[in-house]
């Protein structure tokens, strides 16, 4: 696994300290005397690890049940990111086993066929919070911050005392490595043992094992459901899962197409904040302001740079490092006033309508599928793209019109276990499944922009019932995916998306697009069901007509049967639909 990185928003109030790879935390030091000095004696650096030991709920480890899920989620995210970056079709094996002799302790193991991790990086990735490759670049990936897997390891260590165990191999010729990594929470540094291992049958890949205190459950927000949702949005991924009760599940991949390779982009001027702009100015190696603007941002050419400089009343040859505080303000305002082309969208890879439908078809048994992918849009300088898919109607609930005019109930498929069925019942609220960069979001649905967009869409217009201010009611699953280089989560545990106006607007347009197609289907279904009911009703009386004619005309039984048959044919042919 290649991931680990640093968090942005959480530390906005803290001072950033050193270098590009590391963002520790420096305690604020006070210069006042007396009491201030006494206090100073107690003030010391807090390590990120310590911070999260005390605030583990921020990362999704608040309950044993959620911890188990978060652990699997972080490991899966990392594996998939690594595989896709290396252009390998991901094959993951997830296993949760009870640790013998210990109550509520489970061993979570995730094995992938990814590129592996070089030996020197293994301890840092798994034993250091905020270490990784994804934070500093603007590119769509599942992980963003570099906290996840190391936090999972830390949680495991905290609850069981056992180290994280990692096997990794980077190629068929490379030597496989086995590591046992512990985190020194005071220093946010890994301590590890490196053992040689023979890892047969695997050319490349990584396997992580974490022992942790957890609670195994089925049903909503379970590991199983999480994996199922992963399978919906990632139809190229092959997953196998074995749970503590011995159940084995396989989620087959249905496409060999990896998600489009995404480009890394420079930040867009409109999305940049004042503090970041200052830091960028300070760090830049460019000597002219104009060149700084052109090189450090996307979509800024000489003309735009010149226009920004003149609006800010700054020389385009000013040295970036010497632009004073007040001038940065002016520069920021000038940037905001200047019309700049939207950021390039090559950095985001949507799932695509076809694959959304494939993914839904494979995991949700329904009668009707529809998907829609919007073209990319921008919020605060970050490009993002919204897509949605709908699976509607339990198989066997709807009617089919055959070519010869007959209407039949569509074939019933085999019943799955109730906890495997994503589709809501006809009288229940619909199921909403949310994704950010292909990662399912399981918690805090009501705080999420996606939920808000679904609720504020008028589904009554598409033939569904919808109580005021809530999700529509019906046998339906809506999946919504937001892909972006920077998904604006409301918290570090990445459970809900912030409701930016631009995002809500795109979401609603996307849902409406799906809704219109759904509406056509539902209306047709209702018409068909209505017609089916009518024909059934009429057919009840056909035998009576036959009998009456038999009684009056003394027809023989075969003649009567023929009459009844003819009547049925006439009925089917005569009723236009």
């Amino acid at each position, binding site marked *: 696994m290649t991931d680990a990185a640093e968090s942005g928003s959480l530390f906005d109030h803290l001072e950033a300290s050193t270098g590009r790879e590391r963002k520790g935390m420096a305690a604020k030091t006070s210069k006042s005397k007396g009491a201030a000095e006494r206090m100073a004696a107690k003030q010391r650096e807090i390590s990120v690890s310590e911070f999260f030991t005390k605030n583990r709920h921020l990362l999704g480890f608040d309950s044993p049940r959620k911890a188990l899920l978060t652990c699997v989620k972080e490991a899966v995210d990392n594996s998939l990111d690594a595989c896709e970056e290396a252009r390998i079709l991901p094959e993951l094996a997830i296993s949760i086993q009870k640790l013998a002799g210990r109550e509520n302790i489970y061993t979570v193991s995730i094995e992938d066929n990814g590129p592996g991790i070089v030996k020197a990086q293994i301890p840092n990735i798994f034993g250091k919070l905020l270490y990784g490759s994804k934070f500093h670049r603007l590119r769509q990936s599942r992980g963003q911050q570099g906290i996840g897997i190391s936090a999972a390891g830390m949680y495991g260590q905290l609850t069981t005392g056992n180290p994280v165990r990692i096997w990794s191999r980077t190629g068929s010729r490379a030597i496989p490595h086995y590591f046992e990594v512990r985190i020194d929470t005071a220093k946010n540094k890994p301590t590890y043992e490196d053992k040689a291992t023979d890892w047969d049958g695997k050319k490349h890949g990584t396997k992580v094992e974490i022992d942790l205190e957890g609670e195994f459950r089925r049903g909503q927000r379970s590991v199983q459901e999480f994996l199922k949702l992963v399978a919906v949005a990632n139809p190229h991924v092959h997953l196998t899962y074995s749970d503590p009760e011995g159940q084995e599940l396989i989620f087959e991949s249905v496409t060999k197409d990896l998600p489009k390779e995404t480009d890394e982009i420079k930040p867009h001027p409109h999305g940049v904040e004042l503090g970041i702009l200052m830091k960028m100015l300070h760090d830049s190696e460019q000597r002219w302001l104009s060149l700084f603007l052109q090189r450090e941002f996307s979509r800024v050419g000489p003309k735009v740079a010149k226009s920004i400089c003149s609006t800010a009343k700054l020389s385009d040859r000013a040295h970036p490092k010497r632009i004073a505080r007040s001038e940065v303000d002016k520069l920021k305002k000038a940037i905001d006033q200047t019309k700049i082309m939207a950021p390039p969208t090559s950095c985001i890879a949507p799932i695509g309508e076809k694959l959304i439908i494939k993914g839904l078809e494979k995991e949700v048994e329904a009668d009707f599928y529809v998907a829609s992918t919007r073209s990319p849009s921008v919020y605060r300088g970050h490009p993002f793209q919204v897509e949605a898919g709908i699976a509607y109607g339990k198989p066997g609930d709807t009617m089919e019109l055959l070519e010869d005019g007959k209407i039949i109930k569509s074939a019933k498929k085999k019943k799955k276990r109730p906890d495997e069925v994503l589709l809501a019942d006809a009288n229940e609220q619909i199921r909403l499944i949310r994704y950010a960069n292909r990662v399912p979001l399981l918690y805090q649905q009501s705080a999420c922009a996606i939920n808000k967009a679904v609720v504020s869409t008028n589904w009554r217009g598409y033939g569904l019932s919808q109580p005021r201010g809530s999700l529509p009611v019906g046998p339906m699953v809506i999946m919504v995916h937001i892909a972006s280089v920077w998904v604006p989560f409301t918290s570090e545990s990445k459970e809900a998306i912030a409701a930016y106006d631009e995002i809500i607007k795109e979401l609603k347009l996307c849902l409406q697009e799906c809704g219109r197609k759904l509406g056509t289907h539902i209306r047709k279904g209702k018409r068909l069901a209505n017609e089916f009911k*009518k024909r059934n*009703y*009429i057919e*009840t*009386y*056909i035998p*009576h*007509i036959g*009998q*009456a*004619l*038999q*009684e*009056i*005309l003394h*027809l023989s039984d075969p003649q009567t049967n*023929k*009459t009844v048959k*003819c*009547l049925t*044919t*006439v*009925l089917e*042919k*005569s009723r236009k639909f």
Partner: protein
Amino acid sequence: MAASKKASKKTTKKKRPEQSKMDAKTIQSIDSTAKMVHGKIIKLDKPELKLPQRSLANVSYDRRVGHFKLGRIRKARALTVNTVKSFAQTLKLMAFSKEMVQEDDFATKREAYYVSKNWGDAKFREQPESDAVMDDIEALFSLEGLSREHLRFYPEEHGGAVAGELTVIDRDEETGKPIEIDCTGFGSGAYSIPHSVEHLKFKTGAKFILAIETGGMFQRLNKHRFWRDSKCILVETMGVPTRATRRFIRMLSDSVKIPVYAFVDCDPYGISNIYRTLKVGSGNAAHLNQFFCVPKASFLGVTPQDIIDFKLQDATHPLADVDIKRAKDALKNDPFFKAHVRWQKAIQQLLKMGVRAEQQALAKWGLNFVIEEYLPRKLKQTGKFLP
């Protein structure tokens, strides 16, 4: 189906009489209707039964014929959600009718309703449903000159009482031999009109028929043998005359060619319901009227003018709201009253006076004033009777 056949078969073991001409025509009509439907089905055409619409909108009043006539509006019964059930029921009821003709049996409306209970999904839920389908069939076959009695559906209620110089020739139900009934020979009682009167024949020397609304008046005239003194036949209508009573009066007046006089209360109900129905039939059963009306009838009394002529003003009651509404409705909507200016004037006069007078009001001048004064005086001027 076999079960239903058995159930509907009456167990009477009388000898099957020869089919009459009308019975043969009935069977033929049912058969041809069924053949038409069956033929269409076999050719994979949409089967359809077209039945005359029974409503005032499809009725016209022909003065020359003297009764309401069905218009050309038809309603269709076919393979549609709204009509398929009654389509099936219509055919089933026709099959039932044919069976009864062949077995020389009959069913009352109520019985027919219960017979349908054996039809499964096609059964009637309430009797009004079966009555409506029956009326439809009746309307359809009335176009061919067949009445409901020909189809062997008999009304529940029997006719009124008859007294006077009349011999009714009925037939013995078992042997089929003619029986002569002398309507003068019932003492203080009277002859009761049977449910079905189609087979009756008459002999009489009477000069007219007097249709009387109330039983009380009928008793008085019968007790004092009014029929003997004025050579007439008394018929009690008991309110609005039943089908049997109307048919009886019609057949009687047709066969012996004597006039019919109506003697009813002087109120909008007596005029527009009892008399109008007797004379031209009712609006919502227009298909029946060719058989069940008495175009020859005329209105003896009590007329609004009688209230003045016989000084009955202090023996009246004010018109109730329903009376006024009924009278106005008759003037405005009833094709019969609209066709007769004299009737319009009479009803307007009644409305103007704002009162109604019962037949019994004549008792103000003495119990037998009606026999000694009123009727003789009126009968001297039959030409002045309201049409």
